[in-house]
């Protein structure tokens, strides 16, 4: 199809969808409205179960099943990326050259690394109390590890990042989440029911029943998934080469 025809189609389709969306926007309740029935129920349910951060209660208790689906997406995407970025038949690995890193960069990276790592862990741990949680903390912690690549070199990173271990962590975290769900079923209530543990004192680290446990599982899953994803791409960018002449 020619470029021109495509632009015409795009113009027609875009105009149609734009008209539809604008008409819909005009019918939407005004921005900042007060009517949020499901939201109010969710806040009440969260407080009843002693979870200070309503978002955490939604993600790990009320709509915990969505989160199971979501970490499965993460799990599946990591698996998919590892399969897609494997060494093909006509490729081999080349040892990367140790790179010279400017001293200020190295200093900055090596100081920032532990700070970022701790921040990540702190954010995970306080998921049910303050903004943050397994997702955010997991990404921060995993990205922090890669400051090592910036500060030292690729081989240093490879040493602190045994991929086999992260593979297992990735699978374990998903299983842990699902098994916690099964525990609810076995205890006679329902899948992913938050009735196993006492709800604890409001606004403490152990409050919220199984919320902190599920949160930790998600943190572990996200962290290992991000490490594995970045590892797949780094491998491609740094190590894997095509055979000459192919």
């Amino acid at each position, binding site marked *: 199809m020619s470029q021109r025809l*495509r*632009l015409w189609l*795009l113009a027609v389709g*875009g105009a149609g*969808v*734009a008209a539809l*969306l*604008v008409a*819909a*926007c*005009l019918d*939407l309740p*005004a*921005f*900042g*409205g*007060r009517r*949020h029935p*499901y*939201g109010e129920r*969710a*806040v009440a349910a*969260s*407080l009843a179960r002693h979870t*200070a*951060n*309503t*978002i955490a209660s*939604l*993600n790990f208790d009320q*709509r915990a099943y*969505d*989160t199971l689906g*979501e970490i499965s*997406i*993460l799990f599946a*995407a*990591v698996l*998919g*990326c590892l399969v*897609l*970025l494997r060494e*093909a038949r006509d490729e081999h690995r080349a040892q990367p050259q140790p790179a010279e890193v400017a001293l200020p960069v190295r200093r900055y990276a090596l100081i920032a690394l532990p700070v970022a790592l701790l921040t990540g862990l702190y954010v995970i741990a306080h998921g049910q*109390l*303050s*903004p943050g949680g397994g*997702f955010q903390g997991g990404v921060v912690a995993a990205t922090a590890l890669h400051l090592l690549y910036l500060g030292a070199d690729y081989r240093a990173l490879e040493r602190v990042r045994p991929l086999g271990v992260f593979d297992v962590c990735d699978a374990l975290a998903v299983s842990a989440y699902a098994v916690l769900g099964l525990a609810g079923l076995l205890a006679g209530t329902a899948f992913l029911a938050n009735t196993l543990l006492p709800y604890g004192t409001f*606004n403490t680290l152990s409050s919220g029943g199984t919320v902190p446990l599920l949160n930790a599982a998600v943190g572990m899953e*996200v962290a290992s*998934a991000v490490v594995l*994803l970045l590892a*797949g*791409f780094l491998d*491609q960018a740094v190590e894997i080469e*095509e055979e000459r002449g192919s």
Partner: protein
Amino acid sequence: MHVLPYLVAAYVFLTGCYGLATSRNLIHTVGCLAVCQSSTYVLLLAVGYRDGATAPVFSDLAPGSRPVVDPIVQALTLTDIVVGATVTALLLALVLQIAKRHGTLDPDELRELRG
């Protein structure tokens, strides 16, 4: 102000679609898809906003003392963001393989699947 956030979401979505349709580089295509997706975040959070309300976190807020914004859409957006990152990663992995096997990233030059 009543409809501006929704209109911005619609605009971002369509802009992303324009980028997808006219892209000349598949890595750019994947980036445009990420733009499309960010429109859904804007729409969802705009739907949940409430004038004069605060975040639904009660660690230093007495329950019931102030109205809070809708937490549901925030939970949905959180899920959505993680989904977006994984889709981006997976598509980029495919793009890398296309670059290897076809030697080009210009969709106009990929001529294997036609008719």
